[in-house]
């Protein structure tokens, strides 16, 4: 049996009876048990997966109604709440937290009879770009296990790439879906802010983050987006756009499409091989009839500083609730005055979260708010208006997803600033709310390179069409693990 089939192929095979859900789920579980020791994609697994698969098989046999996922195994980043399963955020703070409710994206998947196969590893509270900041230890890149899988949705990317599931949900606050997608050679989409419900996504920087699908093909990504997108009565920030079928008209091509190449993302600081792959992708798109021209987004150079100022401020507030009073870990409160108790409890955050907490209480504080936080908000609105201007001239924007290739585990872990700078190509989408997608494009020395498209707000369809067209021109090897 081939565990590397796409979602589309899976659905076909289940429908024509050449495959049962139970067979596929059992094989997937076998595969997970075999490869996990070397890649560590998962924090926890669904022990009921096989019995859930049997249930769906039974319903299929009885010709009862079955949801559109037909028992497809999907992994979930462990910062998205799942009823009855732990949701840890890869933190000691939530080591044993079991949410009493499903996130809206989870209810959507369950109502379509997807099987939540397990919860995937991440940088603690989604803060990081390498999945090394997990309380449970790092995940490893399946293309070369000495390397990081990217982050913060590293576990999700690894699980999709290493055939431990068909698709996954990650979350993208500054590139956390797209970066690991690029590093692990899978597709990752950050939807428009408000397209997908955040209810049940544990907040890190709530004004910019979205849940995003990760899969092995653009078509599969569109299929998952269909299920998770739409207005939600549990999230006031979701936007009503009616039902759109993102899997339709994927193959319209890019002929006549105006594509802007973001100058600030292909020049200085970009790895030579990454730059070369990007140029190749651009000429491919031109031969397919797209019109590609460089465009300068001046404020991109301020975007990293802006992002870390805003994200840390929101994080400082969002993570303040982890005071170990209503839930948490074992801790004898005896003898502590409240403030001492709080600081003691909060010592259980890992190093990266602690760093951002400190930053987050500094940049919006009374003496510094004008110098840092308010300035960041100004740059953010400047970025928004520059993006708006750019989309008057272009249908899409293009850039490499990451300026560099995957790096070795441990290589940058003690140099937070160099890690922060790697976000430069992705965070523009978060700060402006627009959708962006990363697709696998090339391999160099056995390490993946991803290409990224941006589209205007709510233009996911255009985005997926362009990604689909470029995907068709690639021919990538199978995962070695």
């Amino acid at each position, binding site marked *: 049996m081939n565990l590397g089939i796409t979602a589309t192929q899976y659905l076909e095979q289940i429908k024509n009876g050449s495959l049962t859900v139970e067979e596929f789920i059992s094989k997937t579980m076998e595969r997970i048990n075999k490869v996990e020791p070397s890649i560590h994609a998962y924090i926890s697994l669904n022990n009921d997966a096989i019995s859930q698969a049997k249930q769906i098989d039974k319903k299929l046999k009885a010709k009862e109604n079955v949801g559109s996922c037909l028992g497809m195994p999907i992994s979930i980043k462990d910062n998205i709440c799942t009823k009855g399963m732990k949701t840890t955020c890869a933190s000691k703070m*939530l080591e044993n937290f079991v*949410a009493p*409710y499903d996130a809206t994206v989870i209810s959507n998947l369950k109502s379509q009879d997807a099987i939540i196969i397990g919860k995937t590893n991440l940088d603690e509270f989604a803060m990081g770009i390498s999945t090394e900041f997990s309380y449970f230890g790092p995940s490893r890149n399946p293309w070369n296990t000495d390397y990081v899988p990217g982050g913060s949705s590293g576990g999700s990317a690894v699980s999709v790439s290493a055939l431990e599931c068909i698709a996954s949900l990650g979350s993208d606050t500054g590139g956390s879906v797209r970066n690991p997608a690029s590093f692990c050679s899978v597709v990752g989409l950050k939807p428009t802010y408000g397209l997908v419900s955040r209810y049940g996504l*544990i907040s890190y920087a*709530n004004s910019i983050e979205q849940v995003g699908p990760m899969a092995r093909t653009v078509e599969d990504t569109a299929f998952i987006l269909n299920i998770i997108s739409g207005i939600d009565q549990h999230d*006031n*920030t979701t936007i009503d756009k009616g039902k759109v079928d993102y899997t339709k008209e994927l193959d319209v091509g890019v002929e006549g499409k105006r594509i802007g190449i973001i100058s600030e993302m292909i020049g200085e600081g970009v790895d030579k091989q990454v730059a070369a792959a990007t140029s190749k992708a651009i000429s491919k798109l031109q031969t397919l009839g797209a019109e590609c021209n460089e465009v300068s987004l001046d404020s991109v150079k301020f975007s990293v500083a802006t992002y870390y100022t805003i994200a840390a401020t929101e994080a400082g507030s969002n993570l303040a609730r982890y*005071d170990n009073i209503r*839930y948490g870990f074992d801790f004898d409160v005896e003898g502590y005055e409240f403030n001492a108790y709080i600081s003691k409890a909060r010592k259980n955050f890992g190093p990266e979260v602690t760093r951002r907490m400190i930053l987050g209480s500094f940049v919006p504080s009374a003496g510094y708010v004008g110098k840092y936080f308010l300035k960041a908000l100004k740059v953010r609105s400047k970025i928004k208006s520059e993006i708006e201007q750019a989309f008057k001239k272009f249908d899409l924007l293009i850039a490499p997803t990451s300026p560099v290739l995957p790096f070795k585990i441990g290589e940058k872990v003690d140099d937070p600033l160099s890690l922060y700078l790697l976000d430069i190509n992705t965070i523009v989408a978060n700060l402006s709310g627009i959708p962006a997608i990363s697709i696998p494009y090339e391999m160099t020395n056995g390490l993946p390179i991803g290409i990224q498209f941006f589209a205007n707000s709510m233009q996911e369809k255009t985005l997926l069409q362009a990604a689909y067209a470029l995907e068709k021109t690639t021919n990538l090897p199978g995962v070695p693990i």
Partner: protein
Amino acid sequence: MTKIGLEIHCQLTKLESKLFCSCKADYRSLDINTNICPVCIGLPGSLPLLNKNAVEKAAMISIALGCKTPPKIAFFRKNYFYPDLPKNFQITQYNAYGPTSIGSDGKVLIEDKEIRVRRIQLEEDPGRLVYEGTSEKTLLTLIDYNRAGTPLVEIVTEPDFETPKQVRLFLNVLADLVENLGVSDPSLEGALRVDGNISIDKGNRVEIKNVGSFKDIEKALHFEITRQQSLAERGIPIPAETRHWDEARKITVSARSKEEEQDYRYFLEADIPWVLIDSSVIDKLKKNMPESIYSKKERYIKKYGIPLQVAEVLSSDKFYSDLFEQAHNEKNAKEIANIITTDLKGFADTKEQREQLKLTPKHLADLADAIMNNIITRNSGKLALQEIVKSGKPLSEIISSLDLGHVDDKSSLSKIIDDVFSEEEKAVSEAKLNPDTINYLVGKVMRKTKGKADPALTLDIIKKKLDSK
């Protein structure tokens, strides 16, 4: 000169649900930590869902206090750690980056003194801390989150009050106003809470917190004025500080904490999109808002000729004015107003009395009509009312069972007066010289008729009889 400003927290107790979730706004009398959900205890992944009714009710308060409402409002996070605050930030409103709270720049007249309202903001109430013993000496602090997320309107005034009495009058007006608007029941414990700030003769500003009741804020302010004056007289500087009201000792005590130095790191709450409040919304609210106390008062005076003081009592008490509105017609309005504001006294003063009251608007109308049509006297009316509030029986039944029918035929009244004259010979002889004794005789007649005698007629006959003696 004394300058006093107020910060008043008013719970919107008339709402069904909390500000950001569907838990009950009425948390009182519920078992500890049963009125909670993932949103109001801030579980990871939960998101606030704005209660639009709360925005409307807050807007009504804002309109009633003459405030301006901006075209769109926003919510902010006020960040601080406290065990009663589930998220360790409070969702509130904030005007430092431009007016985005539900109201600002209002004013209220108190005895010709203009009190400016700086701002009105909608926010969530925290949970409640329950101490074993007192908060200072407790060994055990428990947290009840039933109240967490209850809709709260904060009203902040400029330091325009000059006396504690003005403060009391303002608070009375405010309590009547929110009750009249149907947004809050100020009689509920904790529904209206007041903090004050006070300075004398350009001295430092002292905040007074922890005041449990309206009565105590006046006492606390009086205490502070005396304390600050005696410090000033001895040349001791008054430190800027926060002081807590000690209810048992009736004094203010320095809070010692560094509340002054709190840095709340306010920023926009992105989970709640901006709420557009265009002028048509405000117009609609204005149209559908209950009539203001002031306008009621004017109407009572102008339309029905009700005396000013009666109109004031009637209009400022929603319970009374609701009764009046349902009972009156053009003709009996004045009589009903009288009955409510004088005879009902003592029977419907407290909340419990009002809840047990058997009196209906129909009773009031019947009673007024009976008095105006000389079926019973005003005195008998009083007796009948006493019976009605207890039993709720129809007036006609009460008149016959208590034998309250009017004695207004001359002959029977004359006979009763003759009886009194023969019993009170001494008084009769004095009466010719001393008019007070006539009143004594009238009283005797009233007692004999159990108040049924027509007072004017009685007096008339007595006078005639005395003259002919």
